[in-house]
Structures are given as C-alpha cells and as structure tokens.
C-alpha cells in the first residue's frame, strides 16, 4: 500500500538532478553518456578510420620506398649503361610490365606453356635492358635486369595496397580495410626486403638467396667449368673417391639459370648412371629458427614458378635416381638482401654435410650431381 510519505520521497527524488549536484560530476556523467552513445552507434566507423589511418601511414612509406627504388634504378641505368637518351620514360614503362600466366583449365602441358611464357618474358626484359644500357656487359645487364625487377615488385606492392586503401575508403567496408590492415606487417617486411635487394642488385652484391650457388661455387672453384643450358655452369670435381658434377647458375651477374635443364643434360650425358642428386638451396625459415641453420631432407630443393622442379623430378624419375636436399635457413628479408655473415659462415658446414651425404648414400666410384640453386649475383665460379 502506497503511503503519502513514500509518495513524497519519490517526488523528492524526481525533483533532484539525475546527474548529481556537483557540476564536475555532472560534466563527467554527461561526457560518459555521450562517449557511450557515440561508441554504440559509431564504434565500427571509428575503428575503420583508425585502420585507414594505419594503412595510410604504411602507404606513405611504400610510396617513399617505391620512389627511391625508381630513382636507384634510373641512376644505376645511367651510371652503368651510359645511354644516349634519357631512360626515365622507358623505365617507367618497364615498371608497368605484366605477365599473364597460362590457362590451366586443362592442366596437361601447362608446365611447357608456363616455361615458354617465362622464356619470352626473360628475353623481352633482357632486350629492353640492353636497349636502355648499351654500354653494359653481360654481368651488368643481368644485374640491371634484377634491379629493375626489384623496382617493379615495389611498384606493384604499392599499387595493390593503394588499391585496397582507396577501395576501402570509397566503400567504407570494414572487411576490405581489415584484411589489408592485418596483412600489412608482412607486406611491409617484404617491401623493405625488396628495397634492400634493389641496393644489392644495383651494386652487384651477393644476396642470401645465393647461398646454394655459393656452396657449389666453393666446391667447384679451381676446377675447369663448362657451360650448360641455360645460363648454368658445371665442373667435374673428385670428392671422396666419387665423381661429382657440380652445377650452379653462371655468375657473377644476377642470374638463376635453368637448373632443371642443366641437371637433365648431365643425367642424359651420363645415360642416367648417377648415384644421387644433391640439391642445395636457401629456404625460408620459421620465426625462432636461426639464420644459417642447415637442414637435410629429400626432394628437389628449388623455388620459383615450378618449371625447373618439374623437370628435375621428371629426369630423376626416368632413371630412378635418389634425390637429397640440403637447405640453408633464412627469412625473406635475408634472401633478397646482401648476404648475412651467418649465411657465409654456414657455407663450410653445408659443404661438410654434402660430403657426409655423399659418403653415406653413395659408393666409391659412383657419379653424383651436386646442384647449388640460387641467384649467382656477386658469386663467380
């Protein structure tokens, strides 16, 4: 039952300021309600603007890296190539080059189609570089080609991120912005790696990816080399009573060659009488693994679009040749930037492991193929 006293209390309470009597507490309370309501209705939009701002910051950095890359490419081209006309316009056109991968709805024969496309691309790029840098020799042409490819990669990364940033801004879609914002740290690492690769290529410095080529180079150094298809060299080296055919891409120009063709040629030359194929390559390390760590396994240790791996697997399958792999661990940044001391220090250990594999997996008098995979920039033979 409601008494007159309780009605009076209620009337008193209603008459009081619901936000309190103290003006400071009144302001704070009001502020809290405003913030609460704003976040309730506009929380996602605020989050979106924060993400956009973060992407924008990275985009600024990417634009700076891309412009620096372009500048380095133009300066190197002018310095080494000594062109008659300014190569800037041609380089700008070069940076926009694209390659369309073959149709794989019917996968039969796609490897050969892909190989053809890659060959055409390589020839086209090399011709362009020769036109832009008529004074460059073969080694310098290869280095310039690599420099321009790194600048192309930076240009492409910048344009893709800019595309998603502008698309996200236009559509105000949280999901478009979110996916690019989440991937940004990895993309930025890759862009920074290409930025340092650009310097390495323009100066002709060995890069981390060349670890395999350096192992092969150290084994074959001092022995007569012979050219192999395509852009590879082979040396016949006696190791532990066996005959080793040591293969690497021809250096010191920036070149990965076609190890698939080279290994196939050596196997054919020996009519398939090869006791083992040992491949050495640089491999991506997982976080926490040590740079320069060596791991051993089975299979064709080779990256790239897959054409060479396919050819090597076909060749060894034909003659049932066992294949061993040795990888030197490094991350993407180390792979394309000047070779780290840790990687150089691991080369001798890798050679010891190769010898150990030969001793354990082959007999005296056998023939083995040792293929050092990777970019031979800054590495002779």
């Amino acid at each position, binding site marked *: 039952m409601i008494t007159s006293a309780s009605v009076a209390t209620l009337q008193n309470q209603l008459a009081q300021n619901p936000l309190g009597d103290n003006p400071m507490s009144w302001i704070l309370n009001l502020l809290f309600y405003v913030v609460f309501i704003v976040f309730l209705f506009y929380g996602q939009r605020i989050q979106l603007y924060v993400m956009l701002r973060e992407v924008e*910051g990275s985009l*600024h*950095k990417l*634009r*700076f*890296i891309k*412009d*620096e890359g*372009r*500048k380095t490419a*133009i300066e190197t081209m002018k310095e080494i190539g000594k062109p008659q006309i300014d190569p800037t316009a041609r380089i700008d056109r070069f940076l926009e080059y694209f390659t369309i991968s073959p149709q794989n709805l019917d996968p039969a024969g796609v490897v050969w189609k892909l190989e053809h496309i890659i060959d055409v691309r390589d020839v086209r790029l090399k011709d362009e570089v020769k036109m832009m840098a008529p004074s460059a020799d073969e080694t310098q042409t290869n280095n310039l080609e690599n420099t321009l490819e790194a600048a192309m990669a930076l240009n492409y990364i910048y344009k893709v991120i800019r595309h998603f940033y502008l698309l996200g801004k236009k559509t105000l879609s949280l999901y478009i912005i979110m996916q690019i914002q989440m991937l940004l740290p990895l993309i930025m690492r890759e862009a*920074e790696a290409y*930025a*340092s690769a650009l*310097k*390495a290529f323009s*100066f*002709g*410095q*060995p890069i981390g990816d060349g670890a395999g080529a*350096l192992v092969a*180079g150290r084994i074959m*150094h001092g022995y007569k080399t012979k050219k192999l298809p395509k852009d590879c060299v082979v040396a016949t080296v006696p190791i532990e009573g066996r005959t080793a055919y040591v293969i690497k891409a021809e*250096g*010191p120009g920036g070149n990965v060659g076609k190890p698939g063709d080279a290994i196939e040629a050596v196997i054919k030359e020996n009519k398939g009488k090869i006791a083992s194929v040992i491949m050495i390559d640089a491999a991506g390390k997982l976080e*926490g693994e040590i740079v320069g760590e060596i791991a051993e396994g089975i299979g064709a240790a080779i990256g790239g679009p897959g054409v060479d791996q396919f050819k090597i697997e076909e060749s060894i399958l034909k003659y049932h040749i066992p294949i061993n792999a040795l990888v030197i661990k490094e991350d993407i940044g180390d792979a394309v*930037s*000047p*070779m*780290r*001391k*840790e*990687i*150089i220090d691991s080369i001798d250990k890798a050679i010891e492991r190769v010898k150990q594999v030969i001793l354990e997996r082959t007999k005296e008098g056998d023939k083995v193929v040792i293929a050092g995979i990777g970019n031979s920039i*800054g*590495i*002779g*033979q």
Partner: protein
Amino acid sequence: MAQGTANSATRISSFVLLIIFITLALSMTALILAFNAFSSDPVISGWLILLGFVGVGISMYVLLQARRRIRRLNIAIAPVTTTIECKKCGFKNVREFQRGDYIFKEVEPCQKCKENMMITAIYREVKEGDKDHYRF
C-alpha cells in the same frame, strides 16, 4: 620527380613547423602571464598554467610524431664488407665493398708474398642489438 617526392617525404612540412612554433609561442606567453598574475589572481593564473602546459605538450607531441614518421621512412641498410684472402700465405684483408667486387674475383697482390689475392666473402653484419631476443 622522385627526388622531389623523397625530399618532401623526408622533412617536416614548413606549414606544420609554423603551427608548432605559433602554438609554442602562445603557450610560453600563457605561462609568463600566469607567473605575473599568480599573486593578483590565482584562479586566472591556474587556468593560464594549464593552458600553457597543454599547449607545450601538444606542440612537443606533434613535433615528435612528425620526426617519428620521418624516421620510420628510412630503411637502415647495414654496410657490406668484402674479405680478401691470400691462398698461399693466408693473409686476410677486410675492407668496405666496392662496386665490381664478387666472390672468387682475383684482386691486388698480397702485401706479404706478392701472390694474387682473392675475394672469399662479401657479407653484411647484423648488429647484436638488431637481433630479436625471445624466450623461445
């Protein structure tokens, strides 16, 4: 074009610098006025002190952020070293990388035995501080 873009990206814009300077000047004026008005009107002086410190804080923050943005743009590339060795006497020479150097290249004669020396390594050294240290 690239030069212009790089330059504008690697320095603080003069407009931002002007705004920072004006804010800083006004804040300093507020602090001086607060000091003068302290004995006559403590309430006004208190507000001026608050205003002055907030202004100094904001301008310092904007300046530091602008500097941070520029520092973020620069990518530190470690110097590259070339090691030259004499195969005969083992004499080793380490110098900065020069364009044209490559591993297995024969270079100048050895200072000790006059035999041709060879480049055996080209590498960059990552400083200990740059390496990551985690518990696992």
